[in-house]
């Protein structure tokens, strides 16, 4: 480098640092990437929330595209995304399967009775027995599972219109095309 341009070196380093830190600021550290992407769903069997005689199991995720939604009645963000789930439940490209997580069954049933039930089925997991194997660490979380029962994506936080249109909808379309 010619001597006259030497004074630019610290400026360039500073600029690179600024860009690096800006990228860091834009990331949400509470969103921890899941190591389960690309792996089959963990084996599980939970009593159904609305009908304790029935079970909700990993087999139920075979043959159909599923959004596995981890939710609870005490979770405020879950209430926020409830309307979105209601709208999505009209879509027949996929089923919405609920894991009712660390919740009281009666409270959960009450929420579904009052605000509608977007779930094809709901497993009740009051002690985080199944949630632990899915690596759940908060609600809401939503896993996209393909027809072969492979976890393809994990969304942390509520599903908003933006999340649906930008991320989940294209992914579901892709999975649908895969057949």
């Amino acid at each position: 480098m010619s001597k006259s341009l030497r004074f630019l070196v610290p400026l360039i380093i500073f600029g690179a640092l600024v860009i690096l830190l800006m990228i860091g600021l834009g990331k949400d550290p509470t969103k921890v990437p899941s190591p389960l992407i690309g792996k089959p769903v963990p084996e599980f069997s939970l009593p159904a929330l609305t009908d304790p005689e029935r079970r909700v199991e990993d087999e139920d995720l075979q043959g159909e595209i599923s959004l596995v939604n981890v939710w609870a009645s005490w979770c405020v963000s879950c209430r926020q995304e409830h309307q979105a789930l209601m709208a999505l439940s009209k879509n027949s490209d996929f089923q919405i399967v609920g894991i009712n997580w660390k919740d009281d069954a009666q409270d959960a049933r009450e929420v579904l009775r009052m605000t509608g039930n977007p779930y094809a089925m709901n497993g009740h997991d009051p002690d985080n027995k199944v949630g632990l194997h899915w690596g759940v660490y908060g609600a809401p979380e939503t896993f996209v599972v393909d027809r072969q029962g492979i976890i393809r994506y994990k969304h942390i936080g509520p599903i908003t219109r933006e999340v649906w249109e930008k991320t989940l909808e294209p992914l579901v379309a892709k999975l649908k095309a895969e057949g």
Partner: protein
Amino acid sequence: MSALIKSLALSALLLLGSGVASAYTLEEFEFDSPEQHDEFRDLIAKLRCLVCQNESLAGSQAELAQDLRNEVYRMMRAGQSEDEILDFLIERYGDFVLYDPPLKPSTYLLWFGPFVLIGIGAFVVVRTLLSKKQTQDDPLSEAERERLQALLDAKHAPRSPDS
């Protein structure tokens, strides 16, 4: 002064609070031997609570941390080794569940980056110092010497009133 007393009182309260909290989590668990107790305590200190990310499982009061503590306890009582328990959690929650990131190609930059930066810094410092020494040793030319003498003389001369 009152600010000092306030901050002292606050830190005393915080200390008290943290003491109560960590005692609370460990007392719930029963062990056959003090060694097992220590092993459990060390293990949960290595694991991160994913809800309150700057706390370990040993220190966190979050409900999820309690779930994971119970699971680690259960696995330990079932005779599983420390590595088995860590692998179980990493498979589900990822490397982030460990407080110390594991050494592997994707973390080389994290582990060795600081040493590389120190190396670059040392290289620059040494090179700068060496090159400076050389220029200092250059003798003054005859013209420069005369100019220097003139400057020194001017400094010692009485100041003119307009300077």
